[in-house]
């Protein structure tokens, strides 16, 4: 690369995807007939033409170096004519048009130490956020939690163990939820438990008071004209941290009291039942880096009870809908507390207006 800068262009948008499609994909584009899962690591799509496209999927930690990418591209050059793609859950996919090529590719990937899997009724890679690697509002790390969860459940990714249906995990490092935590089977979200601290001098300099007030979902923030700052009614604050996103002079991070909550039962597809939001099951677990053993144990407990109780093809949220939440808490032995009963915007909808329930 020379030192003289090339001429910049603007508003060109992304390059045309067509140039990046492997030949077997370009030829059979929109003309696929069916697919079959061969293993957790491999599937084949068959075109109307009879052409076959074999996909081999490998795990990626998402936070990757250029070395990692160059290793992938070398593999793609060797086996796939220089084509590769990524999935919406951060895995890498290599596509070839012949079974023998696919087998050679799979062997090479395994020999190079890649973890292959994630296809079918598995625990695939974890959708997640930036955490302590890069974010100002993170109440916990994201990459670390993903790592320990995927280590814990590696067998479900690779296929040593099966599941009734896919279980989607997600990690969000704060309630801003840049990840898909609010609609995942089992997910963890970083939370705070104490109100933000007000730095009046900084509020005056750095913040717009009306937008700070408007950012509060519970109306806990009011003007403090004397200090040209704001006041927070602490008993109304739910520690969401949205005010801190708007006004940097309201820091909320607190190592003693920050931690994570576990939510379960969400799904995004419309298969069988409507998409569902995740629901709170564990209001707080302490931040215990680097390996958050309390979080992995909680996930393991929930997964085990689900595996034992669910019918084939039944997602976690569908299983809970069938057995009832009272049964979920009984089976998982997770204590039910004041925090579990909603007192936010949809509270009344969640109260049980029926005498039919289980002991």
């Amino acid at each position, binding site marked *: *690369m020379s030192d003289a800068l090339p001429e910049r262009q603007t508003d060109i948008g992304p390059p045309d995807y067509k140039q990046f499609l492997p030949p077997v994909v370009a030829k059979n584009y*929109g003309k696929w007939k069916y697919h079959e899962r061969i293993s957790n690591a491999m599937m084949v799509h068959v075109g109307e033409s009879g052409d076959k*496209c074999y996909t081999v999927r490998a795990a990626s930690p998402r936070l990757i170096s250029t070395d990692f990418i160059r290793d992938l591209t070398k593999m793609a050059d060797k086996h796939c004519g220089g084509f*590769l793609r990524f999935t919406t859950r951060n895995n890498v996919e290599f596509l070839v048009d012949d079974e023998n090529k696919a087998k050679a590719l799979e062997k090479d990937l395994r020999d190079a130490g890649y973890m292959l899997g994630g296809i079918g009724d598995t625990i695939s890679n974890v959708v997640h956020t930036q955490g302590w690697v890069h974010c100002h509002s993170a109440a916990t790390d994201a990459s670390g939690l993903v790592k320990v969860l995927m280590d814990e459940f590696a067998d479900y990714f690779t296929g040593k163990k099966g599941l009734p249906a896919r279980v989607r995990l997600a990690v969000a490092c704060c309630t801003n939820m840049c990840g898909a935590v609010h609609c995942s089977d089992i997910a963890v979200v970083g939370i705070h438990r104490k109100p933000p601290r007000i730095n009046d001098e900084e509020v005056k300099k750095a913040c717009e008071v009306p937008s700070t007030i408007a950012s509060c979902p519970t109306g806990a923030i009011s003007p403090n004209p004397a200090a040209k700052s704001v006041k927070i009614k602490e008993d109304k604050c739910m520690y969401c941290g949205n005010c801190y996103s708007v006004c940097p002079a309201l820091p909320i991070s607190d190592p003693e009291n920050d931690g994570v909550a576990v939510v379960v039962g969400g799904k995004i597809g419309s298969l069988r039942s409507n998409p569902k939001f995740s629901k709170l099951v564990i209001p707080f677990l302490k931040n215990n880096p680097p390996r958050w053993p309390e979080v992995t144990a909680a996930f393991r407990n929930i997964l085990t009870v689900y595996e034992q109780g669910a019918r084939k093809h039944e997602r976690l949220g569908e299983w809970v809908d069938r057995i009832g939440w009272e049964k979920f808490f009984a089976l998982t032995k997770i204590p039910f507390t004041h925090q579990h009963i909603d007192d936010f915007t949809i509270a009344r909808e969640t109260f049980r207006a029926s005498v039919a329930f289980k002991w």
Partner: protein
Amino acid sequence: MSKKTYATPLLDQLEKGPFPSFVTEIKRAAKRSDASNDLLGILERCYNDKKTHWKHGGIVGVRGYGGGVIGRYSDVPEEYPGCAHFHTVRVNQTSGFFYTSKALNDICDVWDKYGSGLTNLHGSTGDLVLLGTNTDALEPIFAELSSRGWDLGGSGSAMRTPSCCVGPARCEWSMIDTLDINHELTQAFQDELHRPAFPYKFKIKTAGCGVDCIASVARADLSLVGTWKGDIQIDQAEVANYAKAGMNIQAEIVDMCPTGCISYDGKAIKIDNANCSRCMHCIAKMTKALRPGKERGATILVGAKAPFVIGALMSHVIVPFMPLEPPYDNLKDLITKMWEWWDEHGKNRERIGELIVRRGMREFLEHMELDPIPQMVFEPRRDPFYFWTEDELK
């Protein structure tokens, strides 16, 4: 300047175990980059202190754009000078996340020269994220990338980088050309993507079918989901093959159909198509035997977002079926029209889904010139409190 060596006993524990380690990745990048080397130091410190050491982003960017770069500064710059600035560059990914080695290697070359060598493939919204550079490097990075055909993605109160599922490129269920729609929309709305002028962010995600691998219904202000009209195509010979291979068709297909519209007599499947809700369960489980109907289009939904401020919302139906063929003018018109209303009435940091809740579906639908239909709701209202216009009283 000799490179500082950091002891990272906590992070080192995240190099153990079968799943590939992001710590190993940071260490690889640290061999060549002071920024990544200091990132190791500051991240170990975060793990020790159990808190983040990053401050709010300042306004940084490239000339002529209002977004695409997220400013990030550390709160301990003297101790970790290499990552005192650690800005993120969002590069607009390709439709369906397809790449060639050459394209990715090109980006790596630029990033090794001007940045930390660390990336996210991909960020939550879909961008190819280049993680960690300083303010002075932004213009050179943009010149190098844009001259090679890459542009930046969105940030702030703008249309965010649209993204889509793998679609017709490698999926037999895709009822719409997700890659092409995604590409066309991104190109059509470049100004809205690069120059934030909206009340808040606006995300567009395109899914080929109701399986929704891109999570559009959960995560996009505008969700386009492929669907069909007409009868599910059945290959009874393949149905028999599934039964022969051991599938319990009664339990796995018939009993799990949410509308009870499938029957099976031990030989053939029958579907009462008029009562099918097109949920995709049977098709997804019997890929060789069942295929969607032949008239294809998309259901258009609006309004999904994460919990801030009024609680999480999922997108809801506004157009049950829209044929989508290039150049997608019907879709572009719909989007522009929705933006007009949101621009006119949205408060600062109010998503379109929240605005619809605040001002009511009626006003939104009237602006969109869409007639109310039962497919838009799970159920009609329960309360007796509703408006009449003078016209309706005549």
